[in-house]
């Protein structure tokens, strides 16, 4: 479903993605690992069509995504509906004045009837157990609540792929546990999950395949998550963990 071949990307002079080759199939749960600034977030942005490769090809559902095609409004919108992006900072994602409108924002644009929209919003509220927040202002919620609302407003678009940038960041352990289970359920329901994370304790629960970036912005490993976690030497080599790290 996602096919990335020999992709390079650079911010003016700085290289951010260095010869990336990657194929992700429908229904997979993939984790992106790597030290800070190794290119994970850039790759997520690329998958979402926020940026396009400087060199190489990116295909989604066998269609090549290029800057030129993204300029076509309709094409871009189709892509954005199919891939849902949950930002690292939930604040940036929430801009409506109450939670209900926030979740309804996407479905309303799709031109479905208001009663259908209401059903979707209610379902999402229930699914994330945030019914009580319905009339609240997103800006004043707690960090965990904001994350849930952000997930709900992406889910209401019913995307095929969910892309999450550091979803565990800033959440308390209980909410982290809840999120892990929720993501597992989504994956079982057939959604493809792509998550970037630094959380080595939980990564094997939200993914069965791990992709490891190093500081040269290229992929150094692509293997089952459990296997990668056992290869402590490799994790040390890419500076993801400190020299005294033990499993």
């Amino acid at each position, binding site marked *: 479903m996602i096919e990335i071949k020999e992709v390079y990307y650079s911010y003016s002079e700085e290289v951010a993605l260095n010869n990336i080759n990657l194929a992700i199939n429908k229904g997979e749960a993939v984790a992106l690992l790597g030290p800070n600034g190794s290119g994970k977030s850039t790759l997520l942005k690329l998958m979402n069509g926020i940026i396009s490769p400087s*060199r190489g090809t990116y295909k989604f559902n066998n269609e090549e995504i290029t800057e030129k095609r993204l300029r076509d409004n309709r094409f871009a919108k189709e892509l954005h509906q199919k891939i849902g992006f949950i930002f690292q900072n939930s604040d940036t994602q929430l801009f409506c004045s109450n939670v209900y409108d926030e979740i309804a924002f996407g479905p309303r644009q799709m031109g479905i009837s208001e009663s259908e929209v209401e059903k979707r919003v209610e379902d999402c509220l229930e699914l994330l157990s945030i019914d009580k927040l319905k009339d609240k202002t997103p800006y004043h919620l707690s960090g965990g609540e904001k994350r849930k609302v952000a997930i709900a407003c992406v889910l209401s678009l019913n995307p095929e792929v969910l892309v999450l940038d550091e979803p565990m960041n800033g959440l308390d352990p209980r909410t982290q546990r809840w999120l892990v289970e929720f993501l597992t359920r989504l994956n079982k329901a057939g959604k493809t999950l792509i998550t970037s994370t630094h959380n080595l304790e939980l990564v094997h629960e939200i993914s069965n395949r791990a992709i490891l970036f190093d500081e040269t912005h290229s992929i150094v490993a692509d293997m089952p998550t459990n296997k990668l976690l056992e290869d402590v030497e490799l994790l040390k080599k890419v500076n993801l963990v400190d020299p005294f790290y033990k499993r």
Partner: protein
Amino acid sequence: MHIPDNYLSPATCAVMTTAMVPVWVKSVRKMKEEIPKVKIPLLGIGAAFSFLLMMFNVPLPGGTTGHAVGGTLLAILLGPYAACISVTVALLIQALLFGDGGILAFGANCFNMAFVLPFFGYFIYKFIKDRVRTEKGEYVGIAIGSYMGINVAAFIAAIEFGLQPLLFKDATGQPLYCPYSLSVSIPAMTIPHLLVAGVIEMIFTVAIVAYIKKVSPGTIYDGAKQKTNAIYGLIALLICFTPLGLLATGTAWGEWGTDEIKEVASGGNVLGYIPKGMKDGFNFEAIMPDYAISGLPEVAGYILSALAGVAILIILFKVISSFMKSGSKA
């Protein structure tokens, strides 16, 4: 509405900057009074906000976009004095870093956008709000205030432009700066603002205030409790007198033909005097005879064009080779 350099004469720029000085001083004092301690960060971050606000493109009918200035909005959110400082800083950064608005014209730009716009817009808003004490009244105040604010600022800018050909001409009667007189500059500036920019400003301001009121009402500036009328009367007076001040200083520059003297002098009469000191003190221009284009020795002309040629060639070469490099990378 960012006036670039060379549209206004240096004299006009000097007058406008001088007019801004008391406004700045007053604003800084007011800020210190209104906020218990010196909250410097608020000024800086308010300026950053005001700068970014000008980056937002607002959708217009027909799929095009325009952008708001947000002067009245800032005045409502932060208070007019803080808005004045914030917009000033934002304008300075725009002029220095982005070439948006002139350096010499900085004072004039501040006068229009950091002084007239927020103060006038805020005054209208406050005036209506204090008389119609309902929520509706407040929003009507915001709408009319922001609409009027930007239009009055545009009008003042038009006057600054329009006075240039009247005041600053060379001996042959050619205008030295903006060549359009009031009859052209006023409609050229005000019509687009009345029809488009003012409407954008109004919708943008109302929508943002409504959002913030809903989400976080405590963050909005709750307004000065004291009587504002006296101060605003003074400001209104200042605004009215500035063009007259311009006329008066204009006469000191000695840049008119005999026909204009009458007009200018009558303008000066309204004010009551023509500043003699300026007339005598700074008039090296008046000593100078007509300029001429020919007057450059042939050799110097050759050298000059050779230098220009070399510079342009190097620039072209560098630019092309940089494009080739980035082209081969992709």
